[in-house]
């Protein structure tokens, strides 16, 4: 049964992004708000770069990406004994320090979204509360202003680590609600908030939390398999989110990415921006796909952490824009592809022998 599901997943990996590409609707991104009016005017008539519109370039680029990935997978096989040696230590760390990193990052994002403290470019701070991210203003969905208070309350319980599992599930629900309220525009964000919510529901509060002190992070033996399934779902959501973003934005709207690189005077590394944009697109697609498949999870987490941080520094963005992803990537770096061994509650059996 599991094997059949895995095969289905692998087939979906090939088909779904292509369907996204062919049916791509309007997609919002905070990056669009970085550009000046002059840059937007230039962008309106910017030609599609040859490297993004020619099969003669994209075909060999795809082959190259595949060869690099195959080489990395071969190295992974050779390094497995070393990874197995350090894995238990890293997994123990993931259970203790992983949740607080995730809790505090998410709490920061939720509190700022609920108060409008991290607005999109061009909007005054503390004026427009949003749902999870700066682009999704609650004023656009009449009658749902109360979500601001929900997010602030959620941020508070996450900081304290009270009822962390329930808070994680609420975050999953908020991500789904975002899709209902904002439609396809929220697809860019929903997987990357649902996944950390799910991870918190699995791990609980961890270190420096009320839940941790009260030993509420333990699982009953009967439910422990759910933790393993939930972990895989979270990893797949994160990977799928990256593939979606790479296809919906970078691959099919490359002039926007190039304009942003130009705007930020991003280092060229001796390459033209279109080529650099194509490399970034390929890296994001391959990393996302590997996360979905559960391969090279630790190296991919490092690569994505470095890439996100480098972009944030170059674009002058606050790390709070991606605090959810920092937490998840650190957790994947520590725990790897599978859920760490969650603590099992000792159950007392009553009865007469």
């Amino acid at each position: 049964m599991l094997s059949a599901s895995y095969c289905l997943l692998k087939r979906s990996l090939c088909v779904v992004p292509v369907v996204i590409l062919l049916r791509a609707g309007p997609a919002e991104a905070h990056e669009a708000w970085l550009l000046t009016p002059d840059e937007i005017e230039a962008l309106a008539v910017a030609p599609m770069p040859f490297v993004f519109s020619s099969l003669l370039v994209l075909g060999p680029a795809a082959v190259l990406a595949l060869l690099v990935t195959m080489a990395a997978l071969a190295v992974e096989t050779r390094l497995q004994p070393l990874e197995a040696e350090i894995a238990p230590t890293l997994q123990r760390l993931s259970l203790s320090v992983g949740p607080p990193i995730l809790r505090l990052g998410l709490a920061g994002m939720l509190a700022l979204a609920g108060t409008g403290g991290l607005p999109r470019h061009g909007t005054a701070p503390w004026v427009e509360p949003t749902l999870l991210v700066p682009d999704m203003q609650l004023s656009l969905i009449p009658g749902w202003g109360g979500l601001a208070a929900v997010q602030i309350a959620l941020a508070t319980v996450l900081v304290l680590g009270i009822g962390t599992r329930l808070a994680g599930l609420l975050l999953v629900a908020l991500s789904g609600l975002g899709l209902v309220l904002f439609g396809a525009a929220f697809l860019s964000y929903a997987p990357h908030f649902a996944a950390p919510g799910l991870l918190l529901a699995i791990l609980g509060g961890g270190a420096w939390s009320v839940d941790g002190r009260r030993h509420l992070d333990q699982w009953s033996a009967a439910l422990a398999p759910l933790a393993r399934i939930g972990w895989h779902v979270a990893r797949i959501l994160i990977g799928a989110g990256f593939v979606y973003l790479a296809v919906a934005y970078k691959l099919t709207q490359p002039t926007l990415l190039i304009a942003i690189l130009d705007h930020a005077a991003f280092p060229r590394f001796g390459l033209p921006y279109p080529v650099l944009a194509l490399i970034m697109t390929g890296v994001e697609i391959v990393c996302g796909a590997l996360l979905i498949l559960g391969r090279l999870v630790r190296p991919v987490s490092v690569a994505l952490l470095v890439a996100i941080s480098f972009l944030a520094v170059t674009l002058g963005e606050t790390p709070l824009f991606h605090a959810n992803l920092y937490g998840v990537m650190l957790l994947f770096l520590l725990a790897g592809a599978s859920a760490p061994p969650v603590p099992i509650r000792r159950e007392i059996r009553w009865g007469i022998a």
Partner: protein
Amino acid sequence: MMGGGSWGPVLALSGLLAGLAVAAPAVNAGDPAPRAVFLQLPDHLPEPSVTVRADPISGGRWRLTLTARDFGFTAICLSTAEPVPMGHAHIIHDGVKVAAAYGPIVDIGPLPPGRHVVEAVLRGQDHRALLGRDGLIKGQVVIVVPEGPRG
């Protein structure tokens, strides 16, 4: 080189990359402008246009009157707008956005002496820039503010 279990991911990844490499050129053909920033109106609709007039009002301030054809102003914003000629205008003064006009009349305050280029760029209800056949749909006015009397 790789264990038997490694071929599944390689096959899946090769299918994904091949599919994208084949489909992307078709999707990207014809220089499409980024959907995240621009709202392309359908060809069967008449292309909107906008002209701008500037009038001085009390206190040294300036009032812009936007005359838009085939476009309706609305203050209602949406997270994702349909490609219809409806929305608002961004007012750009010497390359910097200074106001959003949700109706045909907007005050932009006082201007210092000198020559000023003020543009109104039509936007959809989700703030994306409306895209006509030749790029952005905009009107422009040049305001020359004379030096005031020196005391």
